[in-house]
């Protein structure tokens, strides 16, 4: 596995603002489990759900195939019915999903959100921004780790921040930070 590098995150700390180490926390992490992420969360009483949707890319379907795509995400996520998520770590997933796939994904995720669920994601300021190809994890409360992927992922088609705000109908955009290379870091809160 490629060696990790770290990058400071201004928004990551807000995910944990209302969570203390004694509180049970449920985390939904899109992507493979990285050692540093597991190590970071070992300081919490937590349940981590690692779902590597990136390995299933590309998700392509038309609107009339939505039920099929919902079923596809249900099969992939397989979250227990009682699961209520405190923290979602989407990373750059939405840069690889078309609107129908985002809708299907959120349809499956929605029942597992609660009012104060928080989420982190990467987007782009300019949809022509070049594709990054990284695995992400958490190194510290305010520091991300990233590793280069061995190969670029298929289906890169990022949305503008405005489009994404509309598409992420069960989240409210709380804050965004402009990063180098025209990328954006997003902090989201569930909107139920």
């Amino acid at each position: 596995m490629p060696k990790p590098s770290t990058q400071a995150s201004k928004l990551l700390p807000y995910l944990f603002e209302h969570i203390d180490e004694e509180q049970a926390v449920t985390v939904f992490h899109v992507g493979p489990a990285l050692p540093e992420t597991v190590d970071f969360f070992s300081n919490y009483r937590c349940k981590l759900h690692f779902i590597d949707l990136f390995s299933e890319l590309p998700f392509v379907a038309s609107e009339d195939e939505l039920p099929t795509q919902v079923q596809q995400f249900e099969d992939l996520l397989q979250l227990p019915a009682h699961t209520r998520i405190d923290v979602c770590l989407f990373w750059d997933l939405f840069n690889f999903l078309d609107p129908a796939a985002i809708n299907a994904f959120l349809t499956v995720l929605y029942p597992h959100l609660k009012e104060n669920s928080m989420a982190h994601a990467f987007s782009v300021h300019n949809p022509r921004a070049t594709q990054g190809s990284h695995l992400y994890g958490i190194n510290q409360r305010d520091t991300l780790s990233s590793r280069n992927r061995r190969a670029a992922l298929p289906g890169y088609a990022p949305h503008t921040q405005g489009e994404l705000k509309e598409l992420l109908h069960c989240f409210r955009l709380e804050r965004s930070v402009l990063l180098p290379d025209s990328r954006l870091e997003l902090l989201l809160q569930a909107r139920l």
Partner: protein
Amino acid sequence: MIGPSITIKGEVTGEEDLLIHGKVEGTINLSGNQVCVGESGQVCADIQAKVVKIDGKVTGDITGIEMVVISKSGNVKGNIVAPRVTLEDGAIFKGSIDMDPAGSAFAKTPLASHQTTHAVATPLKASGGLDLKSV
């Protein structure tokens, strides 16, 4: 020790540490001891043990009463319940990790460090005492 040419189908219980280099299908319950799945080990079973270390391949749920370690050669598909979990660089894991087994009798116990791989990497003795129940 279960050697590389041995296949066991059934329920493994007992009161001693177990090192698996062969294949096991069924369940493994050594709640007071260590289970180590060696690099050539292939386990298709739920495992419950005090400490579980995976160097090989496991498909099934793992409960570590103290700790679970997936080493760099480990490949696990299943859910893990343990107060402490260590994933080494290169480990492959697919599933969920529950580090808050409050509903069960487990409790976090102080350890000197999270990097406790060495604590379970000692050779496992293979004297008698394991029960193997076929299913």
